[in-house]
């Protein structure tokens, strides 16, 4: 009897052990299935300013990678720097009814009405880095006022009262009606108002064109050989200004502060001495934030336009002293 009992217990233990071995770990069906299944086959459209430069290529690479991974489609409609072509791309996109429309706005106004129309048509709209006056579901990108404040302060630090320099600065605008431009412009004026020693001797638009930036800077340098600093809208544009300064042999004298996506090209420009400081809005980080927002928007049951969120991506400062290979990304890193 005793032996039987022992056998029974032993057998029970063996079975129980077998069962235990089989049930080790949890499949997490409840979360995984709806996550992957709901994402599969969704359609995401991206309307950038243009492809072919660091910011849009960087974001696209990161977003494409996740889309491939999770099985939703990710398509790009490239208006190639034409706002008018962009409006057509968005109107077409509305007709195609994607689940999510990601828009990189050329200015604060042009796409605003169209984005409202997209939202009314039930398409969620994510604005990236350059926004319009009308908020949509999500904005992910730099806080341009903050970027402007940092840039202006850097200029004040370098050309202000204690510096012993002329205090003459030039502003290189980008595209005059773009969000980055108008918000930064506000910040510059706000900061400079408290520092009367800073004298804005030139304020012109280079419209993202390095050749134009170079031409403007050459003229400014001729008129004001004692120019102390330049604050610009975008590193890819202001590298032209740097070239003009270098050509005039004033590399040490003129401090050039600008903002950018933090790519290796920007870092190289700093190490070459073309640019002094870049306020980086960190494209890889923005890309990750975009991916997170894409999934959230695609999965969220909320109707388009009902929940509006903003995420200002963190800013980092890049100067000759701070740049390291870890900070400077290349497109290949992101693919």
């Amino acid at each position, binding site marked *: 009897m005793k032996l039987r009992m022992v056998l029974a217990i032993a057998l029970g233990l063996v079975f129980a052990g077998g069962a235990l071995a089989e049930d080790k770990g949890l499949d997490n069906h409840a979360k995984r299935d709806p996550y992957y299944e709901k994402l599969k086959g969704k359609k995401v459209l991206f309307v950038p300013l*243009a*492809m*072919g430069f660091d910011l849009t290529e960087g974001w696209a690479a990161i977003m494409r990678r996740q889309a491939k991974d999770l099985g939703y489609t990710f*398509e*790009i*409609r*490239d*208006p*190639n*720097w*034409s*706002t*008018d*072509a962009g*409006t*057509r*791309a968005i*109107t*077409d996109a*509305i*007709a*195609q*009814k994607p689940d999510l429309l990601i828009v990189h706005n*050329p*200015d*604060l*106004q*042009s796409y*605003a*009405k169209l984005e409202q129309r997209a939202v009314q048509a039930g398409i969620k709209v994510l604005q990236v880095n350059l926004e319009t*006056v009308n908020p949509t579901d999500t904005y992910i990108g730099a806080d341009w006022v903050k970027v402007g404040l940092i840039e202006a302060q850097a200029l004040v630090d370098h050309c202000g009262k204690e510096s012993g320099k002329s205090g003459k600065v030039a502003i290189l*605008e980008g*595209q*005059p*009606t*773009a969000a980055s*431009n*108008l918000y930064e*412009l506000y910040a510059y004026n706000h900061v400079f108002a408290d520092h009367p020693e800073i004298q804005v001797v030139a*304020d*012109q*638009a280079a*419209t*993202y064109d390095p050749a134009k930036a170079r031409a403007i800077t050459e003229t400014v340098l001729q008129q004001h050989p004692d120019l102390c600093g330049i604050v610009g809208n975008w590193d890819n544009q202001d590298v032209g200004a740097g070239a003009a300064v270098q050509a005039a042999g004033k590399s040490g004298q003129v401090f050039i502060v600008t903002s950018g996506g933090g790519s290796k090209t920007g870092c190289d420009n700093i190490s070459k001495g073309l640019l002094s400081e870049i306020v980086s809005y960190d494209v890889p980080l923005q890309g990750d934030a975009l991916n997170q927002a894409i999934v959230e928007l695609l999965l969220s049951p909320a109707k388009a336009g009902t929940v509006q969120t903003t995420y200002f991506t963190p800013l980092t400062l890049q100067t000759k002293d701070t740049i390291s290979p870890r900070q400077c990304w290349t497109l290949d890193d992101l693919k």
Partner: protein
Amino acid sequence: MLTQLRYRYFPDHLIGEILTKRWIDNAIPFLVLLVAIVVFGILLPGFLTINGLSDLGRQFAEFGLIVLGLTIVMISGGIDLSVASVYTLAVLLSLICVNVEGWPVGLSFLAVMALGVVCGSINGYLIGYLRLRAFLTTLVTLIIFRSIYDIVFLRTSTAIISSLSDSDLWTFIGEGTVLGIPFTLVVTALIAIAWHIVLSRTRPGWRLTAVGGARRSAYNAGIKVRRTVCAAYIWSSVLSALAGFLFAARIGSTGADTGVGLEVSALTAAVLGGNSLGGGRGSVAKAVMGALLVLIVTDSLTSFGVSGPINSTVLGCVLIAAVFVDMRFLRNRDRWLSKVYVSPAYLSLPPPPSALDPTSPYALNDKLRSVEVIGLGQIEGPEDVILDHEDNLYCGTRHGDIVRFFGPDHSRHEIFAHIGGHPLGMAFDRKGDLLVCIGGMGLYAVSPDKTVTKLTDETNRSWLSVVDDSRLRLADDVDVTPDGRVYFSEATVRYEQEDGRPTLSRAGATAASFATILGQAPPEQSSTKSCSRMASACRETGNRSSSLKVGRAPSSAIISRVQKRVGSRRSSITCLATPTTSTALRMGAIGRRFWACEPPRSTSRSPCRTFADAWPSA
């Protein structure tokens, strides 16, 4: 047999006639447009929906106006590259007026139109009056206007964005619809229709085309060339400014890229539609088709996710192809046309009668030995002759006169009437008026007191004819039936008087089907076609039967009888083949018979000849 069927049923003359139409230029772009619509309609799901078409309509409204403006300048023989800059300036001015200054929309509109007039006047004055090169001048104004834009835009960008208009009218212009059609599209459509009428139906439009086609000739014709050219540039700028106004209302903003490269797209559209870069050839329809084509192609490529630079490259290639086709077409159109247009008909001739058989009426004889020659060396190109009741002889001359030789000996003559064209066929009606067919002019009557009246220069248009065959081009021969009906022949419905002859004789070598015998009822004085046989000469043989007409195919040695009975089918019998061609037949006036031969042009100084019994019994 097969040959006959091929010539009878293969409609090559139809193709030829279609090729002569002015709208044939539009056929190729129209076909391409159709193909583009079908292909992209299938490939792009949202393309042919109401929404998609409405968006296309709004874009077309603006772009179409610019292309139309450019087309007007191109028709006048110039080019306007500054359209894009004027458009951009207009966008900016609209936004400043409406958003920043808060002006009423109407006042803003007037300001923008004034801007268009000013910009256009600068171009027009430099090119029209100072006669500078259009390409360089508008290239310079393109840069200047653009610079003005850049300067002003920088100063006003914050104000434009921060103050928005709440005008309902402004919103309506940008987004409103009329009966479901975008308002801006309605505006553009109305303007396009108006311009179509101006260009194709009114004097200013024709003058514009004339100036573009041949500036010197236009000047010689008394057209104010400078003013016309200047006006073309003003209109171009005004239309571009209007496009800018509509764009500003739609988008409500502007940027550094606004209007950049638009001149290339507009030029592509204009050339693609078939408007000639050389001037003098172009229409609103071409502008509209070109604009639609360019919009559809670029929009669709963007929708397919084709990257921007490739999109531009495609557009550039399309422009080059269009320019190439335009040049080839212009250079070769006439050649192709003359090849297809001759369109020979088949006519099997009976064996020619032998002139060697001594019993043949064509055998050599000396019956004409005693012939008397009338008016030798005095008149040129008599073509047809007729005698009146007093035995006076009438004939025409190449110089546009009708000459009367006084009977009975016909040695004295006078100019009976000056007509102005070459009199070809003649007949007396019952009142005693002389009816004359005049090449290039029509059917005229000369009363015994020598007053000349036009009876008709047109007839009804055939239902199935592609070309307009209602105008008389070469009224050739005329006769009057005993019941007073006038029949006259029209030698060609396809060739103009000036180019008809060489082509006629070439085509006529095998036979030709150009002629129509027309019947005219005297009381209404309107003519209708009664018979379209091959006949350039016609003769009612009133002395035999009222139902018999004799016609002759031009340049062929066939004389045929066309029998016409009321209520029954017409039939024609080839009743005679002669060894030579002839231009006029005359039968049985007061017992004598005449046959006037038209000699070859090189020996054209031939008098009117009288033949006795030259008409063999048929």
